């Protein structure tokens, strides 16, 4: 493992700050000391940048501070890019209030509580002496105030908010110049279970891999940041050696929304760091691709704290982002939403195609404390009362939002609605419920701010897996990673709809059992981008088929297969399609042997799923 990234992070201690004679731009995520503020990169592709957020679950978080160098002394206007995140549901002042500190003193201007979209909010003026200024952000509420950037300008005009223009402004202002990350055989984007398994599998077969992950930890939904446990079966017919990597890196204990330790982040990280052939780039988000004809030649990624940019080139790429971001940027064919019955003849599909997807979850839990615990009154447009409140002390997968919203372009709103309902419901239980006594000593211990996604883009491959393939057990010659979970599709919970029409936040799951079904390899590469593999929930399946394949032991096995195929493609200088066309036997050979490193009994025995369905054909 090359320690490029760790090195860079360690040595960039001063935040990335632009300065010219007239203005200085400070990216909030580059603050030297973030105090209790967290870095949130999830919506970078929509609003242009990572930001920092005061995720204090109702308790103000510690100040973030940094020192800014100015080219010139004198008076500057100050603008802070922020907005009122509850604006979609509530017209008044929002809860995400914070203040700017200058040399430790508050400017006494409340920020973060207005604006229905990201805006540059006026934050007063400052007179800079000695060309330095210590600035800080003071959270006032613990309710997710957020800051993208702070702009000091001699002029009274804030920068633009137009996405493209702002990006240009930012790049110019921060003098961002991408560096070459190196040359690789395979670039894997997305370090969820699928991407991590793909990288390990390829690396063990001698492929030089770059693994780009936009968070500090690996595992995606299975990390301690999202806390979803692994599901599905590994090491089963017809390829019992598939799943070895999942078994080696997977947590040993099940449970959604449990304490962070359950998810064994360190194990996934160490498994990757142990591979000499992997260069790991954590905290980098891939945001742009370079193409030539139908091929991707490179990917640009930006550090979510320092804004540093790297360019990765390779003959092969694997999109394991979950959102199919790399494919989308490269013009890959994709689907999103539900197909109509007519399109693939699926029994479970709706008559008419629509945009509905499964939703995203902000999971949470509370703990019992020894003393009474206060929680502020939190009411921002979604009313909770005796009849509709959820009388619970934790919320896991059934807390699901955004099924009727776009899981990419509207994802910030979807995540925020998840936060809003958790806080509003909790506030009701703590402060107004007739049973509030029961909650008196309870305290929110964890509420996710990285939302767990289930579905967005599905990149289309040479074969699109559909319901009948699964239920009729239609086997293809390129059968590979077996899926075993039921076809598990989520819908708004009718009880929740009755109380919160069109504002549902709870879901139900409808299951259809299937037999162990080996997914065809052709679902794992793009049909129109020549050198793009995919593994994870963004593979080539219909909405209905996604119901089974999306669980992470299965996505992990997809990753293993993609890693194997990448090794074959590298050795024979061919592309993913070439592997299907000419080297399927070789792929079968690798799938039979697997890429496990350790003699290890199957430790992945929890949450394997329901009894398998019949094998119809």
């Amino acid at each position, binding site marked *: 493992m090359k320690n490029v990234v760790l090195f860079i992070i360690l040595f960039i201690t001063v935040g990335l700050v632009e300065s010219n004679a007239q203005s200085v731009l400070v990216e909030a995520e580059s603050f030297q000391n973030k105090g209790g503020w967290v870095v949130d990169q999830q919506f970078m592709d929509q609003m242009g940048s990572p930001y920092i957020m005061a995720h204090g679950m109702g308790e103000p978080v510690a100040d973030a501070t940094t020192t800014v160098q100015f080219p010139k002394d004198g008076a500057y206007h100050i603008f802070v890019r922020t907005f009122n995140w509850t604006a979609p549901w509530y017209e008044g002042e929002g809860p995400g209030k914070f203040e700017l500190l200058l040399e430790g003193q508050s400017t006494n201007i409340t920020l973060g509580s207005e604006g229905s979209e990201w805006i540059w909010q006026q934050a007063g003026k400052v007179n800079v002496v000695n060309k330095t200024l210590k600035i800080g952000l003071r959270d006032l509420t613990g309710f997710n105030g957020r800051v993208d950037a702070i702009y000091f300008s001699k002029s009274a005009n804030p920068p633009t908010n137009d996405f493209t223009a702002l990006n240009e402004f930012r790049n110019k202002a921060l003098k961002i110049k991408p560096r070459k990350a190196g040359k690789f055989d395979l670039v894997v984007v997305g370090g969820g279970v699928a991407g991590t398994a793909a990288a390990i599998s390829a690396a063990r077969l001698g492929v030089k891999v770059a693994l780009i992950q936009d968070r500090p930890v690996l595992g995606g939904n299975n990390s301690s940041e999202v806390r979803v446990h692994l599901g599905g079966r590994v090491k089963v017919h017809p390829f019992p050696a598939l799943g070895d990597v999942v078994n080696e890196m997977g947590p040993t204990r099940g449970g959604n929304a449990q304490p962070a330790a359950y998810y064994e982040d360190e194990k996934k990280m*160490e498994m990757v760091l142990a591979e000499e052939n992997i260069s790991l780039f954590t905290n980098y988000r891939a945001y742009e691709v370079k193409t030539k004809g139908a091929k991707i030649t490179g990917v640009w990624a930006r550090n979510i704290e320092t804004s540093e940019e790297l360019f990765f080139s390779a003959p092969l790429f694997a999109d394991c982002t979950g959102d199919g971001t790399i494919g989308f940027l490269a013009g890959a064919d994709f689907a999103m939403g539900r197909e109509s019955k007519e399109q693939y003849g699926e029994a479970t599909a709706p008559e008419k195609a629509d945009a509905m997807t499964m939703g995203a979850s902000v999971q949470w839990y509370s703990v019992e404390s020894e003393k009474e615990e206060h929680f502020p009154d939190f009411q921002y447009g979604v009313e909770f009362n005796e009849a509709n409140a959820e009388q619970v002390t934790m919320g896991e997968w059934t807390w699901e939002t955004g099924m009727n919203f776009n899981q990419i372009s509207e994802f910030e709103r979807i995540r925020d609605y998840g936060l809003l309902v958790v806080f509003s419901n909790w506030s009701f239980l703590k402060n107004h419920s007739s049973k509030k006594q029961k909650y008196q000593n309870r305290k929110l211990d964890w509420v996710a701010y990285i939302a767990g996604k289930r579905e967005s883009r599905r990149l289309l491959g040479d074969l699109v897996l559909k319901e009948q393939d699964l239920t009729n057990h239609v086997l293809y010659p390129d059968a590979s990673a077996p899926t075993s979970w039921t076809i598990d599709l989520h819908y708004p919970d009718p009880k929740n709809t009755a109380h919160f029409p069109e504002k549902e936040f709870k879901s139900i799951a409808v299951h259809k059992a299937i037999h162990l079904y080996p997914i065809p390899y052709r679902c794992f590469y793009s049909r129109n981008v020549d050198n793009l593999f995919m593994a994870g929930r963004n593979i080539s399946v219909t909405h209905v088929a996604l119901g089974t394949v999306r669980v992470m032991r299965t996505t992990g096995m997809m990753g293993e297969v993609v890693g194997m195929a990448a090794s074959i493609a590298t050795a024979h200088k061919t592309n993913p399609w070439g592997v299907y066309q000419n080297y399927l036997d070789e792929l079968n050979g690798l799938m039979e042997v697997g890429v496990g490193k*350790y003699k*290890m*009994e199957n*430790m992945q025995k929890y949450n394997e799923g329901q009894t398998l369905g019949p094998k119809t054909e």
Partner: protein
Amino acid sequence: MRTVGLHWPVIIVFLFGAIGFSYENPENLPPDFLDAKGICVVHSFADSADLISDQEIIELQDEDGLPIWFARHIFKDVCISGKCRMVRLWLFWDGVGNYHGFKLLEHEPLTKSDHTQFEAADYKKLDEILSDSLSILKDLKQEDLVIIPDSIDNPYELDGYTAATQPALSEVVVKDAVYTCHTLWHTVYGNTQEKIRSLLTARLDQSFLEAMFKTGDVSKKLWVVKMVDQHPEYHAHFYLRFIECMKSGDNLLAESTLSYFRGAMLDDILIQTKLVETMPSLSLHQNTELIWKLVDCDLLADESVVRLLEHVQAEELPVGLLNLIYRLIKPEHLEDPQVVEKLADFSQAEDVYIRNMTKRLLQRTKE
């Protein structure tokens, strides 16, 4: 049993079957309890909730005075809205109060809502239902059992003769006998069982627990584990035996003894050591659970840390547990030369995963 008084058990020594009970035993039922030999003890039982059944519980004891089974002669009305049908049978609980079986009286078969008799398969099903202490019937009231069609004015009939059994239930009850199943299930898991348990706890002392445990009978061992869990004063006497039981081929016993060890108990160095020593004989699942439990305890003895590392070296524990084992290691452990030596070995391991993780652990614990 110390005295025989008015409310005390009457002790009769006999061969149960020999005194002339003559019951029909449908096919597929458990063995004929009444043929069992032993000492019969009759406990009077004033059951205010069930005045029709015999107001006594019969206990069959072995020659050492240990319970073999308990039985009660049950007369029950299976009824709804006033229409009733009498059910008569013997119910049996094993020596620790778990459902054990039933026995019918001659010429008194169970019948269904349409007055047809239970068939062998129905008796078998009933036995399965009654064996399931967590049955879906547990939380259901009689009125939850059927769906009553709107068209019926007075829809109540025994066992859903006119009304359909709830779909969720139809799979799990004897067809057309939902009320019988419900009534008997609640009889099995009702007052009588509670009474049996109190009869047993009244005898609780070390020698009784010891004798029960020694029988080798799994349900008796499970009962002892439960009792010791509730009465920590017996812990010292039993815990080593519980550790042995973790190796049992009986999953339930192995699991129960594993769950017995938890919380503050694991801060005891002797227990820690014994548990860690036993690991090579346990399943992967048990070892994983055990290590998670140890992660939660205050401080693991140096010796146990060394043993755990040795288990990994000897491949008795998989590498996949090493990260959890490292969570157990605190700076204090690095004062022990044996721990230091072992970790030094690991930090030179050929395997990069082990090597890296060990180096990082050493770095972390030094900070």
